């Protein structure tokens, strides 16, 4: 377990704009999300929808309890969880699209488990690349898309986290969606 002092420092450093500290923070938050998500799954069946904010809030409170860190602002936490989700999903999407033959799951088709289909994986990879380009063009829109799509937050929740009026978030989201849609469709047409 990372020591308490270290985590507090990491958080402070990250809040001050030290992007490198994020790499150290992520595994910690990720492990917490894993544990909490598992508890949810254990209690309920897979067809149910998780209450995103409830899950993230629980992770947040849990980390607070464990490490007595005071997160200056919850928005950092929401941003982190959205990025973690993006990273995890991308890793799985890549694994799925270049599935090895003769591997451990040679006979088992995970696709039927509805966790992540091949089609969804291809979409995700294209989206990730487009998002990367968007982050250079308009970082705020990239953050909004991350929170909305990967973090599962509603427009209202994002507006609270980022401290903008919901209508402003909605306007950003609309253009970001159109821009990403064009990028992804354009890439598809080139490929065909």
């Amino acid at each position, binding site marked *: 377990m990372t020591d308490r002092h270290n985590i507090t420092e990491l958080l402070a450093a990250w809040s001050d704009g030290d992007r490198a500290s994020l790499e150290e923070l992520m595994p910690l938050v990720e492990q917490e999300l894993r544990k909490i998500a598992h508890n949810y799954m254990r209690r309920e069946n*897979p067809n149910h929808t998780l209450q995103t904010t409830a899950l993230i809030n629980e992770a947040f409170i849990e980390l607070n309890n464990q490490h007595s860190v005071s997160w200056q602002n919850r928005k950092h936490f929401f941003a982190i969880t959205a990025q973690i989700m993006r990273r995890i999903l991308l890793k799985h999407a890549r694994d799925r699209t270049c599935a090895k033959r003769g591997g*451990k799951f040679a006979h088992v088709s995970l696709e039927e488990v509805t966790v992540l289909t091949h089609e969804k994986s291809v979409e995700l990879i294209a989206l990730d690349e487009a998002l990367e380009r968007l982050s250079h063009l308009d970082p705020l829109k990239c953050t909004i898309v991350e929170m909305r799509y990967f973090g599962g937050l509603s427009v209202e929740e994002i507006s609270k986290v980022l401290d903008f009026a919901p209508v402003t978030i909605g306007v950003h989201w609309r253009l970001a969606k159109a*821009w990403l849609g064009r990028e992804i469709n354009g890439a598809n047409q080139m490929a065909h």
Partner: protein
Amino acid sequence: MNANRWKTVESVFNQSVTLPPEKREAFVASACAGDADLIEDVLTLLAEADKDNSFLSEPIFDVGAKILASEYIGLFEEPDFAAYEMQKILGHGGSGVVFLAKDVALERNVALKVLPSTLSDDDERILRFQQEAKAASAISHPNVAHIYGFGKADGRYYLAMEYVQGKTLRELLKKKEVDRIKALDIACQMTKALSAAHKAGIVHRDVKPENVIVTDDGLVKILDFGLAKYFSAKNGEANDNFDHLFDTNPGLIIGTISYMSPEQIRGKDFDWRTDIWSLGVVFYEMLAGARPFVGETQSEIRKRILLTEPDYSSEIEEIPEIKKILVKTLAKDLNLRYEKTTDLANDLENVYKFLSNGVHGSNHSFAAANTSSNGAHHTNEVSHYFANKAVNEDKIKDKKPENQKIERAAGLEKLHLNYKFLIAGIVLLIVIIVLVELLY
């Protein structure tokens, strides 16, 4: 693209996206001062914004959370069993995966439910798993999936059961493949399975469309006795405290409670009649295409289950006998609910037999019984059937309110027909008057 140019694109896009489509092009052209590239840029974005098929609209957080959770416990790790060859994954729950596997010795397919090795020392979980095996194997019924064996291999507990090839009721509902006759048929078979369970002293406790499989031949199998409990026949109470399922922070419970009975929601003692309720919810959902108790939050649903009566309008009301069954199945007061599962089975079967065979011995097809054009006519037949049946079976008793209602409905139908003739007459009269006026 430089930052200034992007700002322009953004500004023109935001101003034009709310305009009516036919005015956009002219606006964009003038706002971009004839810059062809810029115009093209904004217009393609506008075209994209009009599409409502963006996959971005559906957040993917859930999927990520499921992956996190399953990785945490090694849910999908393929077991290495000598007796079984894994073929593919059929489905998964929060703490177990169901594999399609081949029994090597008997050379037959089985459904193999396997716990992850990380749960091999979770006593409560294992007990539950064993309970499931015991409960399901104690019921020998064609509508319950057979249990072949229970054991531990390669450090993991497994439960081998009959492999049922078909679709879950949830899938059928999603595809809208359940019409009234099919709904009755499925409900009948489910009730028979539950009836057998109740006779063996077992409450299923988790009756919902996800746990019902329908084969291509229409055979229904109830699965997943994972929450099943034995109840004592003496006091009729299940010997388990349900509270621990809710041992979580208030407001953090997730998942559906839609099929739970009022007594389950209250955390009170409950018996087989809780299954009767859940079956009623499923039956209602099959008929109405929506659940009887809905709400945006868990607490709203809970409130509805405890306090509100379901909406029995539309399709359900067409056949009073079906409504009667639902009212008696979804009675919040246990004294008003079906006392015996077999009674429910009989009532369902009567309606099913009638609707699928027809009164005059003719075979009504599924479609005919449900098409809207035949609906009213058919309803009348049903009503008469039950009205006659009631009169023949029970001449001494006073007329039941249902029968009075049936007669009223038949009367209304006649009135409706007369009304139609009246309108037609008036229209004809007007036409004649107009013609006469024109001639002169």
